[in-house]
């Protein structure tokens, strides 16, 4: 099996323990959508909308943020030091046990 476990806390504080395949080229935003969690993924994963912003609360070593992700986080709200865009985090075996919290939606 090439599944990993990812723990996602949604905006209501409900914890979801998800099984995530690593062989389908999926990212964290897509995983949320696949489980019908309330993540819009408006831009489709181009790091252009920040609707998949999340806080990484486990101490996994993550890939560095790219320019597009940094740019987008500059335009997003509720950004913290552990903020990442879910669409830029690809699900790999190294991320087994990853824990994240969905950031608030940025609409007033």
């Amino acid at each position, binding site marked *: 099996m090439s599944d990993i476990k990812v723990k996602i806390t949604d905006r209501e504080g409900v914890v979801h323990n998800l099984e995530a395949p690593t062989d389908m080229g999926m990212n964290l935003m897509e995983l949320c959508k696949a489980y019908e969690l309330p993540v819009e993924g408006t831009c489709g994963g181009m790091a252009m909308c920040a609707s998949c912003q999340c806080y990484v609360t486990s101490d996994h070593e993550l890939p560095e943020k790219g320019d597009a992700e*940094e740019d987008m986080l500059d335009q997003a709200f509720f950004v913290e030091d552990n903020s990442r865009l879910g669409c830029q985090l690809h699900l790999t075996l190294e991320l087994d046990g990853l824990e994240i919290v969905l950031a608030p939606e940025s609409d007033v």
Partner: protein
Amino acid sequence: MIKTDILIIGAGPVGMFAVFEAGLLKLRCHLIDALAEPGGQCTEIYPKKPIYDIPAYPEILAGDLVKNLATQIAPFQPSYTLGERADTIEKLADGSFKVTTNKGTEHNAPVVFIAGGLGSFEPRKPPIKEIVDFEDCGVEYIIKDPEIYRGKKVVISGGGDSALDWAIFLADIADEVSLVHRRKDFRGALDSVEKVAELSKEGKINLITDAEVKEIHGEGKVSSLLIQHKTEGAIVKECDHFVPLFGLSPKLGPIGDWGLEIEKNAIVVNNALDYSTNIPGVFAIGDVNTYPGKLKLILSGFHEATIAVQFAYNIINPGKRYVMKYTTVNGVTGFDGEKKEAKKAVVKSIV
């Protein structure tokens, strides 16, 4: 008032392709789009990015897809209202619809197609509760007339190109310009970043980094902001204007108030038949609609547009018989009478 057969709201790829399918049925189309150019997201967001799942195009840039569509629909002479957002819809006594834009342009058609994609692009508003109370009273999301800042104290917030460029521009006009950004790094064009650093050293731009605007204060108009600094805590900054520049994001906007059935920010349609909405005569196609199994793909939108046009024909020409025809067999005849068709085979007998 602009009159047409099918009024299409949204000039993205799906709205554009609807013009072609409508043209085959001799129906004329007019398109409204909030953006200044046709193409929607393909033009505005990712013109240089490749798309790989357009049938028969192994790879095509989004910008080229729009260019090709424009060529394909040209024979059917679509007209446009660009840079205006469709705001209201009204059913007239004759059963047709009147759609009015935010600039007051009126359109009339028996059938309306909503091909609005993710919605119209609006400035992103920082999550400050009282911000709506100060809109046009010292808070501006877009700088339309820099002169209103002459001699005033202005706080710009944001870390991208527009925040940098306006900070530089206003440094010469305003009495005082502050630039607030959540990090020390700015991700704009190198020139702009260097220029801001220089102006900051000269005291012409007051740079406040590692900080965020949290509250707006004032009686009827902005008089000060509360800025939260990561290490230094709260700063009260007196100012006349607050300009948050955080880019654009798509919003369904006024269409959401048209009485259409909405689910998860999309318009519910009947995909078992015709992509009609709960308002007879109004159809929704492309990313803006939803139904069980919906995929937000350009190719799905093309299909939806083609189906919806057949039913629009029945509304516009009640009782008039017609059956879908193949372009390979019949060619394409533009509204100027020019016909594109397959070359006829040469028949000659051997004597």
